[in-house]
């Protein structure tokens, strides 16, 4: 069996599962946010079930439209807060404690290897970086999981990505996944598990792995997953809240496809509007002049991303014709960035620095685009209207290209500003 099949089998108490089979699995963690949990909570209340299946294992993170963006959003967050209080849910993270959910859960040790994590948010697949089975589901699935502790799933086929070679300077996990989605398309992994293997994996930091797994959904994947190794152990050992288990694929596990990726050949990538699959070499984007730069999100709001941005922006000013918004993804990341002097670099450069929020990534708040405006963002989607007006455009990239672009005003390779 593959690692994905093993985790699913373990969670439905079967010796073996096969791709295509429908199973009902026990859930280790069930997650919701301020957009998706209100629907789930209403359905839970209407169901007549009195208590959630495990008050330690339901996680509520108001991150999308927070700090409360308007009255309606405040009311949605209140629904979560009231429910958390009534159910004595330990893992409700209010403003001042919270972070963007898919940066917060690994940091807090809530996402751990071998666990089965479902979340009413499509980027729940992020936690596969830690060797968990993690998949995005809907609000009704969340309601059902809160009531029963279970989720229905179809066992996916797995695609094996074999990563070889080593990253060029300024290239990180985000560039690798944009490149992969560019190759296979936004439905290239539809319903499938994306298993990331190969000799290059050991050179990928946990932050890079989290970025890669985060965007499995952008290829249509059910989950993205890495096999736990020393880097994983190092990351989880002092923070794990739950018991964890390391699984790995058998040598004779079956895959529907094997795809070799030589990461040495990957230059910094930019995905053009309006699909993440429109990935090109950054040099092909040099004519694009932008109005806004966003560095943050569950894809790239972590300390390594801010480190790269700070290295590039240090001692420089952002272009006067654009706005730069930098959003550390959790309070701990914000504080660490402060300690290291990054926030001062960003403010001195003329960037706006925000408390953690999903904000502009989904066109919520904290940096919306007007008609005709263009943004480059370290986020994960560039659909029509994603960051604001339906006639605005979003280009996706890693933090290095975003920071370089903030200085020049047109989409740039970091070499252009780091002489």
């Amino acid at each position: 069996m593959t690692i994905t099949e093993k985790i699913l089998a373990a969670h439905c108490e079967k010796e073996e599962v096969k791709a295509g089979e429908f199973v009902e699995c026990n859930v280790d963690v069930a997650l919701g946010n301020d957009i998706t949990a209100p629907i789930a909570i209403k359905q839970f209340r209407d169901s007549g079930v009195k208590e959630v299946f495990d008050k330690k294992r339901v996680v509520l993170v108001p991150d999308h439209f927070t700090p409360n963006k308007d009255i309606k959003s405040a009311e949605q967050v209140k629904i979560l807060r009231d429910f958390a209080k009534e159910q004595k849910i330990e893992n409700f993270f209010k403003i001042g404690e919270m972070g963007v959910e898919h940066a917060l859960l690994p940091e807090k040790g809530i996402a751990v290897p071998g666990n089965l994590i479902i979340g009413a948010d499509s980027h729940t697949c992020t936690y596969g970086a830690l060797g968990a089975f993690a998949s995005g589901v809907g609000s009704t699935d969340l309601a059902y999981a809160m009531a029963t502790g279970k989720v229905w799933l179809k066992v996916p086929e797995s695609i094996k990505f074999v990563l070889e070679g080593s990253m060029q300077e300024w290239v990180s996990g985000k560039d690798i996944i944009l490149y992969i989605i560019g190759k296979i398309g936004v439905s290239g992994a539809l319903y499938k598990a994306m298993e990331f293997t190969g000799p290059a994996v050991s050179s990928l930091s946990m932050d890079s792995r989290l970025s890669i797994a985060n965007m499995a959904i952008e290829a249509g994947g059910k989950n993205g997953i890495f096999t736990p190794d020393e880097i994983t152990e190092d990351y989880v050992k002092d923070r794990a809240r739950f018991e964890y288990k390391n699984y790995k694929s058998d040598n004779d596990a079956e895959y529907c496809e094997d795809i070799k990726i030589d990461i040495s050949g990957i230059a910094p990538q930019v995905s053009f509007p309006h699909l993440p699959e429109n990935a090109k070499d950054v040099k092909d984007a040099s004519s694009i002049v932008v109005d806004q730069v966003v560095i943050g999100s569950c894809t790239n709001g972590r300390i390594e991303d801010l480190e790269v941005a700070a290295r590039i922006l240090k001692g420089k000013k952002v272009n006067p014709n654009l706005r730069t918004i930098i959003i550390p993804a959790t309070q701990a990341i914000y504080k660490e960035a402060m300690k290291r002097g990054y926030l001062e670099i960003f403010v001195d450069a003329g960037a706006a620095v925000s408390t953690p929020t999903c904000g502009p990534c989904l066109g919520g708040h904290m940096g919306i685009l007007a008609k005709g405006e263009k943004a480059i963002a370290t986020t994960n989607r560039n659909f029509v209207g994603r960051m604001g007006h339906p006639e605005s455009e979003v280009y996706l990239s890693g933090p290095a290209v975003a920071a370089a672009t903030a200085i020049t005003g047109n989409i740039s390779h970091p070499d252009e500003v780091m002489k």
Partner: protein
Amino acid sequence: MKINGKAWKFSDNINTDEIIPARYLNTSDPAELAKHCMEDADPDFMNKYQKGDIIVGGVNFGCGSSREHAPISIKEAGISVVIASSFARIFFRNCINIGLPIVEADEISKVTQSGDEIEIDLANGIVENKTRSVKQEFPEFPAFMQKIINAGGLMNFMKIS
């Protein structure tokens, strides 16, 4: 049971941000969401469609965000069924879970244009574009999915079980 309706054809990769843009996600009231169905895919859709009409998409319909607000909006607007060449997986499971009928029918999707008359026989698994005289069979849902659908959604299924 047969469903008849007029088709509205959309392109490939219609995503949930287009079906229900984020600016409307500060509510979960189905009636509110229904007012903005498909708005960023076709800003005029709300003015053109009628209850009982059918949405026909291409490949990967409903891709992107997990927002259940997308199928809720479609269902509450009165769309009777969604047909597509293929569905994105979270959108697909959300439709099953809330009892919005969906049909995967590639050939029908390819020939259909907006305005065509469609007939679906859900029990026997046949969908027909009557305007263009094209018929396609579609497979049954797996047994347990049928139970969820017959119960009218996942939470009803839970109450019954």
